[in-house]
């Protein structure tokens, strides 16, 4: 029985889509606040490609693609962090290495697993409208784990991403916490891929934060604004996709992007100094 919600959320499948999208709207921007401050906005993209390879591996191995994606995404995130910490490759090159190996392995594995059918496309482009109760449970479980970890570690992670050298001298377990953040990013990618798709996950981590940092004047405030914008984009995007018959994953991200453009224009109107970098 669907809950008595008004149009466009009156049907059970829309309500399942709403729950899943709102959960993604909370945890993706939350973790995105750290990712943006770390200047690793594209890491979600690179890990998304690895998750795609994991989907292919899952299909070939005959296990649920989400578990395959989780395994490869977590391993890849730790690999990227390891390379970054060792400075074995510049952050940019490390990302490129994983990014392209991931998508190439994904293409090969998906081909072996039966080609680009509907079962693969929901992970590539996202499709909240067909999400099942079981998938909602997994998304909500992974999302809750991310939110709890972020709430517990946010002060330490904040200290590290703002001044890593100082954090090391201050005796914080910098390497371990960076690894935890990397794993959280991977979990977030996998939890969100069924909703917005691996191609657009990074957008849900970064775009709400881009707006949030223009509206807030503190790190905590940026996180709160980003989550609010993430949730708002999820609800509005899903509603618009139903009303106009649009692809929901893409519509959610377009709303988040429109939100950023609007915020930036409003901010520019009020302050001649655009952005948050302080006095130029």
């Amino acid at each position, binding site marked *: 029985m669907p809950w008595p919600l008004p149009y466009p959320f009156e049907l059970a499948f829309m309500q399942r889509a709403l729950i899943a999208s709102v959960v993604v709207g909370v945890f993706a921007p939350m973790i995105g*606040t750290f990712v*943006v*401050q770390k*200047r690793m906005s594209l890491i979600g993209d690179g890990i998304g490609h690895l998750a795609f390879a994991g989907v292919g591996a899952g299909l070939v191995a005959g296990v649920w693609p989400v578990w395959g994606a989780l395994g490869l995404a977590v391993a890849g995130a730790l690999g990227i962090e390891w390379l970054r910490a060792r400075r074995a490759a510049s952050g940019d090159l490390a990302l490129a290495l994983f990014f392209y190996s991931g998508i190439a392995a994904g293409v090969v594995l998906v081909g072996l697993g039966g080609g680009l059918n509907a079962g693969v496309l929901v992970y590539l482009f996202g499709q909240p409208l067909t999400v099942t109760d079981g998938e909602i449970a997994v998304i909500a479980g992974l999302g809750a784990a991310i939110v709890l970890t972020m709430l*517990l*570690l946010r*002060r*330490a992670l*904040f*200290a590290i991403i*703002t*001044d*890593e*050298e*100082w*954090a*090391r*001298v*201050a*005796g*914080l377990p910098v390497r371990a916490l960076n690894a935890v953040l990397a794993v959280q990013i991977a979990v977030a990618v996998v939890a969100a891929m069924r909703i917005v798709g691996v191609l657009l996950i990074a957008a849900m981590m970064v775009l709400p*934060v881009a707006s949030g*940092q223009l509206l*807030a*004047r*503190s*790190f*905590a*405030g*940026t996180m709160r604004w980003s989550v609010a914008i993430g949730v708002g984009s999820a609800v509005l995007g899903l509603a618009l996709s139903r009303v106009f018959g649009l692809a929901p994953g893409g519509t959610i991200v377009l709303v988040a992007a429109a939100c950023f453009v609007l915020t930036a224009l409003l901010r520019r109107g009020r302050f001649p100094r655009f952005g*948050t*970098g*302080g*006095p130029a």
Partner: protein
Amino acid sequence: MSFAYGDTPVLEDVSLAVHAGEFVALVGPNGSGKSTLLRVLLGSLAPSSGRVRLLGQPPERVDRARIGYVPQRPSLDSEVPATVEEIVLSGRLRRSGWWRRPRRADLEYLRHALESVGLAELARVPLGELSGGQQQRAFIARAFATEPDLLLLDEPIAGVDAESQRRFRDSLTHLIEEHGAGVLLVSHELSAVAQDLDRVVVLKRRVLFDGPPGELAAAGVSLGMHPEDLPLWLEELR
């Protein structure tokens, strides 16, 4: 203690001690090994020979909550805005546990640290909107908030305005007199704190001078010097 990068000696037979409640400045021209010495003290570099102890412990074993550190050019860039308060509260992480919410005692230390550097009114302002001197004071407040027994500062007053220099001096003497902390200030510009120093250590690969600033002045050297004067008076010392 000695340190070399490969075959190039950077520090030779350097012997240096900072006692509780003592205010020591480490000065020397560029390339004299000041920064290397600081990195050895912090445990990021291991000495080639000799021994380093912080509060009686080797650097890798010392309780980091007792060490305050003010980096030379903090790497903080505000992609996301962060307030002075948020930055300074980071200083409490080791004392209060980094997984906990800040408690009342932490907020007390925050207020105290902000007041001692004169930033209480700017607590909620994003760091990126502050002047260079104010930002530097925020990082000093972060080090104060850890309640350090030993405070290490790397070139903290380079290019800082007069008001910030005065605040800086007052807050350091407060830390030394009220809390009995030892302070090691690495700098090539000492005019702001010259009269409060217990000892000056002049470094140029070796320790060339270690004593009260008065004796240095007797050697014909003023501490109200400009950075560019340094190599000259170092020549005189030899």
